């Protein structure tokens, strides 16, 4: 997602250069509001008491363990606990971030364990986001890369110093490997030195490893969350049990932006198990002893809604409005050369008009949040993706100071951007719980609630004109992208730089193809529907548009799609690298069985390049199946190759799901979908075989949670284009051509 996009780019650049210079890194960190090693020192000092206490009690619980810095604790039994500052929603950060610390600490992978960090924007901020703690933009590994390696290296140096003092040998002669500290014939585990080491000063400039010495980074290591997620033991928000906890279900208006006019709750209140019926700004909540009681009672509510502020148009009218806007002049976001003049001179102009629908996140865990409000404090338990912002929003809703809003972060059963919202559901839960002070209230959404109150990826329309030269180069590309903004009208509106929301044309204005005459315009279209970042945000649809149009141009130039792209990518070596790798591994150019066609797409998002080749079988009746996808990815240093592969597989599956069958449609302003029967997700029988190849790289690591998604729709559509000769410009593609 593009949260704080442009502001972030500057921070990213600071942080990138920090890979080269520790001094810059420390400056960047302190500018972000928390001085990592400095605060590590303070925390170390503050933790002396805790450390002593833990020795006295011979405690082995991580809570009382000797603390080395903001990110790690080591108990006398040599268990190392890593504090994970990002939300794990499946993308594997609990494994990834832990491996960065373990690497520099020279710990064994088995002795590492982890826990989610508390809300604390000074110690646990996302270094790309200033003093804000949060997860998004595929930035977890990238922003933590040096921070956590240095945290691990500092702790290792402290352990070594403690051992050197005890053994009376020079620190330089001490070795640490796989969780064992040794000198000559003497050796020890970490636990024996943990307490003493934690009292030592934290080194301000710990040396990190030369990448050639990596033991864990770049290797396939088991995920840290596999065991509890394969035994039903992992605790999600849905699963939290607290003494006296109540369950709340909400009757929301049939359209977002609706309001309660009149409620008759008499029958609901009398229903068995109901404790209270409470009104709050966005709806009416039934609070009951359990889910089933709340659900039965909710059906008995009689509510009149005020829908005067709601959308009244249907999807076809909205698309028409988008096309009307696209045929007018938009706001210029890129203007190189003179596309209009070049098109006027061209022998042949290729034109295309695209339509992309709203899609929704539909994580399998429906949205939920547990809140307990006391007199001057409040505690939450949920899969919190934006602790700093959620804390502020809950504070505003309850009148409690942000620092007294405690957040306990739990696993997310998927998010894909939904939990990184401007806190809508968190505030709803707080508004309900504050009316029942002293009791924990678990607000649950059903699937129907979730789809109704979803914040969709914006619908979009694109009009493009392009031309190729007789030598097969693109001479001109004129593009107008029209979509609803994501941040407009939200508390984040201030982050929009310039006249138009940056997500409308991302991946287009900055496309990696070299095109001498490129004009990109963007227009925001106002629609009274809530929108939000959806895995890879604007890239998810824009890559489809750019990559299928490239294939139309390749055809006009009478060139093979890979050969055609190679020429346009000559100045972008990393794009060329993934293109060539995917082509090679898919045996591009070799003949395919009768009825099978190939398509390719290449896209960069969140600093990561991905190319995908889809092999699609098309039957005589026009039905088709994607049988195999070959994916090449360049995400800089491959920290956890198996997690990278998993994220590519997942991105491909989710992208294919949307490409084939997902669409939220409106009829007279009302959303027509409600559950998986009319909002179908990809099932296992439609999942292709997937092969992932990672480009070896020494560049700074970049994200993998989102970049696997954008290319797939274009790769599949291009295969169908190759099979039928008919260009595809509308999503979803359906199951027939």
């Amino acid at each position: 997602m593009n949260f704080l996009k442009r502001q972030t780019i500057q921070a990213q650049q600071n942080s990138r250069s920090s890979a080269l210079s520790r001094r810059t890194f420390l400056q960047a960190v302190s500018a972000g509001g928390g001085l990592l090693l400095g605060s590590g020192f303070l925390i170390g000092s503050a933790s002396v008491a805790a450390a002593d206490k833990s020795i006295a009690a011979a405690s082995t619980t991580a809570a009382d363990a000797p603390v080395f810095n903001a990110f790690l604790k080591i108990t006398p039994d040599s268990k190392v606990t890593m504090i994970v500052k990002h939300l794990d929603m499946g993308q594997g950060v609990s494994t990834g971030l832990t491996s960065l610390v373990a690497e520099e600490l020279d710990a064994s992978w088995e002795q590492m364990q982890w826990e989610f960090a508390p809300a604390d924007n000074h110690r646990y901020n996302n270094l790309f986001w200033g003093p804000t703690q949060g997860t998004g933009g595929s930035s977890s590994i990238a922003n933590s890369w040096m921070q956590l390696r240095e945290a691990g290296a500092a702790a290792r140096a402290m352990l070594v110093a403690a051992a050197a003092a005890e053994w009376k040998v020079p620190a330089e002669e001490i070795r640490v490997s796989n969780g064992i500290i040794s000198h000559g014939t003497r050796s020890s585990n970490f636990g024996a030195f943990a307490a003493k080491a934690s009292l030592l000063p934290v080194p301000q400039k710990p040396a990190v490893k030369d990448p050639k010495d990596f033991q864990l980074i770049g290797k396939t290591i088991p995920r840290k969350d596999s065991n509890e997620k394969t035994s039903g033991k992992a605790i999600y928000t849905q699963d939290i049990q607290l003494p006296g906890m109540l369950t709340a279900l909400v009757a929301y208006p049939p359209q977002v932006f609706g309001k309660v006019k009149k409620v008759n709750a008499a029958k609901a209140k009398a229903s068995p198990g109901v404790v209270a019926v409470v009104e709050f700004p966005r709806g009416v909540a039934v609070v009951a002893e359990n889910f089933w009681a709340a659900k039965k009672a909710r059906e008995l509510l009689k509510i009149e809604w005020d829908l005067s502020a709601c959308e009244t148009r249907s999807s076809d009218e909205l698309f028409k409005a988008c096309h009307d806007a696209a045929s007018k002049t938009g706001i210029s976001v890129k203007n190189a050369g003179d596309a209009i003049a070049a098109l006027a001179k061209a022998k042949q102009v290729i034109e295309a008009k695209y339509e992309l629908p709203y899609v929704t996140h539909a994580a399998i865990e429906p949205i939920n949040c547990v809140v307990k409000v006391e007199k001057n404090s409040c505690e939450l338990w949920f899969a919190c993706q934006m602790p700093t912002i959620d804390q502020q929003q809950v504070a505003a809703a309850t009148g409690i100071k942000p620092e007294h809003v405690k957040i306990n972060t739990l696993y997310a059963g998927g998010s894909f951007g939904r939990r990184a919202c401007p806190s809508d559901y968190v505030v709803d839960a707080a508004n309900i719980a504050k009316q029942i002070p002293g009791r924990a209230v678990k607000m649950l959404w059903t699937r129907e609630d979730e789809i109704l109150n979803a914040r969709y990826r914006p619908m979009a329309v694109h009009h493009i004109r392009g031309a190729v030269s007789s030598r097969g180069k693109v001479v001109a590309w004129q593009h107008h992208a029209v979509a609803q903004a994501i941040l407009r009208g939200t508390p984040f509106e201030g982050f929009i730089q310039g006249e138009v929301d940056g997500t409308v044309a991302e991946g287009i204005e900055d496309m990696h193809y070299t095109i001498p005459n490129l004009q990109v315009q963007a227009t925001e279209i106002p629609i009274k529907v809530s929108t939000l970042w959806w895995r890879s945000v604007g890239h998810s649809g824009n890559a489809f548009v750019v990559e299928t149009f490239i294939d139309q141009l390749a055809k006009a130039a009478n060139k093979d799609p890979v050969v055609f792209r190679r020429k346009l990518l000559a100045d972008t070596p990393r794009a060329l690298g993934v293109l060539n790798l995917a082509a090679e591994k898919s045996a591009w150019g070799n003949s395919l069985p009768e009825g099978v066609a190939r398509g390719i797409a290449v896209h960069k998002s969140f600093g990561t390049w991905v190319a995908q080749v889809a092999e699609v079988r098309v039957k005589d009746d026009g039905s088709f199946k994607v049988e195999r996808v070959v994916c090449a990815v360049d995400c800089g240093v491959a920290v956890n190759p198996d997690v990278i592969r998993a994220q590519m597989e997942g991105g491909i599956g989710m992208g294919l799901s949307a490409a084939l069958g997902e669409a939220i449609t409106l009829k007279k302003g009302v959303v027509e979908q409600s559950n998986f029967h009319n909002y179908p997700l990809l099932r296992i029988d439609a999942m292709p075989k997937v092969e992932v190849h990672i480009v070896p790289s020494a560049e700074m690591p970049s994200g993998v949670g989102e970049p696997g998604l954008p290319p797939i729709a274009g790769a599949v559509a291009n295969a169908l284009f190759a099979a039928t000769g008919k260009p595809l410009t509308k999503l979803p593609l359906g199951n027939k051509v």
Partner: protein
Amino acid sequence: MISLTINGKKRKLDMDPNTPLLWVLRDKLHMTGTKLGCGMALCGACTVHMNGSPVRSCSLPISAAEGAKIETIEGINSPAFQAVQQAWRELDVVQCGYCQSGQIMSATALLQTNKNPTDADIDTAMSGNLCRCATYHRIRGAIHQAADKLGGKA
């Protein structure tokens, strides 16, 4: 009063007979490994075994489970389950993990009746279980690996 056996333990439930089994498991017995995803038998997150067959507990009123033997992710321990769980771990199938109790229960039921499933058998048996993280590719691989382990092939 409805009597049934859950994970080997006899239970007598004095509740609305229309209550779905899922909410008895989750809210009454605090067995939270079985999940809610859709509430309409469309996603499989709530899959448990009733007399050895996979059922969607979100849509199964307890009155329909009278006298039945129910097994959940917390209680099941058949050789097929053990092989499935191990294969899931070896291949690191999980991502967010939320759907995985249901996936594992469906996969276990498949291997209890079909020792050597083909890809097509797997697609049929598992197509009621949605995974938004799209771990399907690994699920297929893990079921084959578990089948091998159980002696179907290896």
